[in-house]
């Protein structure tokens, strides 16, 4: 019953996600769009992480490949693709090949159930959140396979740590999610956001403790600092992917970054109102119109920054190509920004923009943690997981279940 299927973001309104409508053609288009979007996100994240980390550490970060290092991710990707494909002696070749694929597949396929808007999802499963958590936790399988098949000590230790860590923290994640489900009464991802819209309250304000627990556990789940035990560089050289290089290694990185976006997307959907804009309850007095211009304004701001940087470059001939590149990039952003002011586009882009922005904020926090914290020791990590997070999550669950009897 999908009506006329015009691909997002240009087209008209759908009643429900294409997967539910049985529109396989459009669902495939969505899958491709998500795949491209995540890949683009990983590229941006790669650049942004280096730049943000660098600026926090009083240095410049990549500056040579492209203006302000904008082409650095491209250069790196090329380098990784061209590297020799090494498989260590004595490795289990099939499993060694399989492991990075499992990691990437797990991270990417879970995105099919994430709603970027009321209909902007591949499919709205009635067990959405369970599906996402189940698929996402398959990633640990890839890590353990990688550690085992490498036939080397450091990867093995990394894989063992990873296994213990992820199993422990998934308990916390599960309990935090259950606390949310008490309020929504549905497992569907779209349904969870809808219930937040209907109750006029993001679940962050009803389940702050569960959100905090999830925010800690999701860092551990994605093996990021300060919980980056499995790949602790200073101890295990590179942890589970010590023996990997070139394209296979880049798959692990792709999986890790996609995983970070995935857990952030789950957190946004469950606690931060998914695709809704900030202050979703304010409507009168042109607030809607004001907020609808934010996407365009943010792109125009980025364009302004790029153009300013281009103008501030030294006048020397050597910088001509860099300046031209940055001007072109700024022009692209400017064009996007102007395009986003067109009324129909403005209306259509709202949901996706706010969703992506919220996820991006989480990504910034991931980078910030990495710049700030030392690394936890393995036993301390598990102690935090089992002695602090799990009991807190259980207590929170009991408390909110009791409270919800009186405060619906």
């Amino acid at each position, binding site marked *: 019953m999908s009506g006329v299927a015009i691909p997002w973001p240009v087209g008209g309104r759908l009643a429900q996600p294409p997967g539910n409508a049985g529109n396989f053609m459009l669902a495939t288009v969505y899958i491709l769009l998500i795949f491209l979007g995540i890949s683009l996100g990983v590229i941006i994240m790669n650049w942004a992480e280096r730049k943000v980390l660098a600026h926090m550490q*009083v240095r410049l970060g990549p500056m040579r490949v492209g203006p302000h290092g904008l082409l650095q991710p491209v250069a790196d990707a090329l380098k990784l693709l061209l590297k020799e494909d090494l498989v260590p002696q004595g490795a289990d070749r099939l499993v060694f090949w399989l492991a990075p694929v499992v990691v990437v597949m797990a991270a990417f396929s879970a995105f099919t159930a994430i709603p970027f808007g009321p209909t902007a999802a591949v499919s709205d499963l009635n067990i959405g959140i369970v599906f996402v958590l189940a698929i996402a936790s398959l990633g640990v399988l890839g890590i353990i396979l990688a550690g085992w098949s490498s036939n080397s000590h*450091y990867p093995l230790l990394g894989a063992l740590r990873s296994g213990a860590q992820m199993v422990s923290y998934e308990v916390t994640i599960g309990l935090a999610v259950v606390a949310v489900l008490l309020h929504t009464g549905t497992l569907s991802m779209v349904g969870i956001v809808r219930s937040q819209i209907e109750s006029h309250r993001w679940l962050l304000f009803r389940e702050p403790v569960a959100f905090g627990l999830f925010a800690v556990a999701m860092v551990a789940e994605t093996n990021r600092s300060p919980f980056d035990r499995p790949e*602790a560089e*200073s101890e295990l050289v590179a942890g589970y992917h010590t023996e990997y290089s070139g394209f296979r290694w880049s798959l692990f990185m792709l999986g890790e970054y996609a995983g970070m976006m995935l857990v952030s997307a789950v957190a946004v959907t469950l606690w931060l109102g998914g695709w809704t804009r900030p202050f979703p309850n304010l409507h009168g007095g042109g607030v809607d119109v004001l907020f609808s211009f934010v996407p365009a304004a943010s792109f125009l701001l980025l364009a302004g920054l790029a153009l300013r940087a281009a103008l501030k470059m030294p006048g020397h001939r050597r910088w001509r190509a860099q300046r031209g590149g940055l001007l072109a990039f700024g022009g692209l952003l400017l064009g996007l920004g102007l395009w986003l002011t067109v009324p129909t586009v403005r209306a259509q882009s709202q949901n996706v923009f706010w969703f992506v922005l919220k996820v991006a904020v989480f990504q910034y926090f991931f980078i910030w943690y990495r710049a*700030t914290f*030392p*690394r*936890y*020791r393995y036993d301390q990590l598990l102690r935090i997981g089992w002695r602090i997070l799990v009991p807190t999550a259980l207590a929170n669950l009991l408390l909110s279940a009791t409270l919800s009897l009186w405060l619906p």
Partner: protein
Amino acid sequence: MNKAAAPLPPEGGPMTAPRPGESQLDSSEMILNMGPQHPSTHGVLRVVLKLDGERVVDAECVIGYLHRGVEKIGEHRTYMQFNPYVDRMDYVSAVSNGLGYCEAVEKLQGVVAPARAQVVRVLLAELNRISSHIVWLGTHALDIGAMTPVFYSFREREEILKIFEKYCGARLTTHAFRIGGLQWDLYDDFEADVRRFCRNFPARVDEYETLLTENRIWRQRTVGVGKLDAATCKALGVTGPVLRAAGVAWDLRKTQPYSGYENFSFEIPVGENGDTFDRYRVRLQEMRQSCRIIAQAVDALPGGPILAKIPKVFKPPVGEVYHSIEAPKGELGFYIVSDGGLQPYRLRVRPPSFVNLQALRGMVRGALVADVVAIIGSIDIVLGEVDR
């Protein structure tokens, strides 16, 4: 720590690493070869770890990957020619090495450096202590997983190295001193540069402390890790900040003053527990104290000659001498035997890193893999000095 873990094997004797064909490992144990190529063994140290899961059952250090025969080279160079070689031992504190060597030879010859030279030596040696401690701080924090302090600390190190470069033209292997005093007088802006550094630096140390000292993770990773009590330190001959962190106020600058250290007022920071955290705290305090000494030295800089009268053909009288100084890492001693010739008959270095490294095995037994890198970092070794 897991209380149910099996008891550790008795200490002493070689580690029972299995030879090919014989199995002395428990089914849950494995041998992990850490280094010589490893991100946090601070050079080419190799540590063979026997692990039970993540717990270290036993460890064995293998050194010598950076052996260059410095002592033997000393027997084949004149006293002057050997001076630059000592810079290459502990290459992050080249100035201190030079100070130790020059003073030892001066003691052998019976000359004393002029007053101005002595104060300049103290000044540069203390700047060098700060730069050495800064490198330690950055790399140690990096080992424990905090990646930002290393960039902050190298920013300050750069200022010190710039002063070195302006003074003697080199940043790392400075060859700053000559036997009998100095070759060059200070450059014009030296005092201003040093004063500016002294003014800024305490705030920078505060910055490191903000990132680390009260950080819960940092504390959990360092407090109680790698404990070494005073008695063990003394038994092993451990010196420097590791010894002082165990509560022993032993600093050669106070106990056997050299190069006019008795004229400066400073304190010897000591720890209580002798763990990794105390070593961290002691070194941070030492940086502040060094800053104090530098400020005093700049104010009290006397005029006068910078080089004592030294014969063109330098032949110290027959005899032997041992002279040691408080290098950033501990007691750095030079033992020189002269047969009256142009070259030392025998030259022996007592390197603090090598001696302090002997405490590693006792500290890591029973610890976890993550603690091993923290403990190696907290001893502050430089492999150029361990292997010579």
